[in-house]
């Protein structure tokens, strides 16, 4: 463990990584949509061997009292034991909660979903959008994979028909109104270097990480620092620039 720790640090100091990637290089990304027929929208994203599936379900519910004419977004993440020997059965733990909340924040704050269009009857009925994240293979960088799968699934989600009483999931009336593509990019600090898309091994030795979610116009809509160490302002500045650049590349895949 300590040997591997030193190995990764020494490599990073030379600008190298265990899997021969450049410091600012993602593993190959594959985005596939429409993978779950029963869901209104779905996507499977692979970043290298990391694999995440997101299903979007819609239902009719009551709006929040402070936003009586807006649809509701609910994001949840399940770290099922099928994805890693370290995941346990039971209610979501800290990491799963953080992941879901970071993904949620990116979608919510970018106003990607036009929630005003999801109102059926003010104060009474609105569409609820459930984004459920399910991890299949954990080989590092779950946040970026989940955020990518979430927006990909939302972009393909169809609106079921609603007759005022029942939702008819067999018939559809158009697409879920989604107007932009927020992309989360997580960068890890290893020694004095910054890497994107950390592998599982790199995540285990990183000092700190920063997730920056950017929009199509380059603005930032969510930030989350993690890890047990600190970041300098210079680190943050270069991470922000990197997240914009990588965000642009990833957006083309969606």
């Amino acid at each position: 463990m300590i040997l591997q720790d030193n190995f990764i640090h020494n490599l990073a100091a030379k600008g190298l990584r265990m899997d021969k990637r450049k410091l600012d290089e993602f593993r190959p990304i594959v985005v596939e949509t429409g993978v779950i027929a029963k869901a209104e929208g779905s996507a499977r994203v692979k970043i290298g061997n990391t694999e995440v599936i997101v299903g979007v379900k819609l239902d009719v519910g009551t709006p929040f009292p402070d936003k009586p004419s807006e649809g509701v977004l609910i994001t949840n993440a399940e770290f099922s034991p099928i994805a890693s020997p370290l995941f346990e059965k039971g209610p979501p733990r800290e990491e799963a909660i953080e992941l879901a909340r970071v993904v949620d924040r990116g979608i919510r704050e970018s106003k990607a979903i036009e929630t005003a269009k999801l109102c059926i009857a003010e104060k009474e009925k609105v569409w609820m959008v459930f984004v459920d994240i399910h991890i299949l293979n954990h080989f590092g960088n779950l946040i970026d994979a989940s955020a990518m799968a979430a927006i990909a699934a939302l972009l393909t989600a169809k609106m079921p028909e609603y007759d005022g009483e029942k939702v008819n999931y067999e018939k559809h009336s158009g697409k879920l109104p989604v107007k932009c593509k927020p992309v989360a990019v997580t960068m890890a600090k290893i020694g004095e270097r910054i890497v994107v898309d950390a592998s599982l091994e790199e995540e285990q030795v990183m000092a700190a990480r920063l997730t920056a979610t950017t929009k199509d116009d380059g603005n930032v809509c969510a930030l989350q620092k993690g890890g047990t160490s600190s970041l300098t302002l210079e680190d943050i500045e270069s991470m922000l620039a990197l997240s914009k650049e990588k965000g642009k590349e990833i957006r083309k895949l969606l």
Partner: protein
Amino acid sequence: MPTKEGSMMMTRADGRKNEDIRPITVRAGVLHRANGSALFSLGRTTAIAAVYGPRPLHPKHLQIPNKALLQTVYSMTPFSTTERVRPGPSRRSQEITKVVREALEPAVYVEEFPKATIDVYMDILQADAGTRTAAINAASVALADAGIPMRDLVCAVAVGKIDGQYTVDLAGKEEELTECDLPVAIMPRTGKVTLLQMDGDITTEDVVKIIKLARQACGKIYEMQKQALRDRWLPEAKAMEEAKG
């Protein structure tokens, strides 16, 4: 930085200027069973923190061979907000528990206490925006009060942007008006950032400016935190010196 004119024009609901933080109270050693404790209030937001340890960690499999495990719990008392908070952990409080722990750990010499645990409990007694930053401010004083070796105290504040103006230490309705909410924690001696979160929609340049503003605002909090520790420990230190003769 807003211009002087700008900040004069834009007085806030509570009469503060954009760069002003609310009145601060900090007291160390407020609890008596804990090894260290502190109370921190910022306007109407009040956090109290207790520290236990370093103490043995059970179950054993949680022990870390080369450092102490830092454990935190952030929780809001049911009566801290207008609408009662349901007791027990929520998704929000669990996320805050995690980010607050990661904000404090960089400052603590955890490597001094292999296999032990240091437990930090933070309760929000009253909430009027900025509870996670208040919890961090209280906890870092409590850790120092417990005599745990630290690289620095941790100071935290949230900064927003209202009507195009950067607004330090959001309070009350400002949380609804702001274009972004950016809580930042720093270690003032080096300026290193230990907590950074944001929701909103701003440019990357805004983020950098806001972090710089937060750093400045933390200066005042830092002084108050240090003063609280002096008030708590100087009389005792003096008494000990006198007893020695």
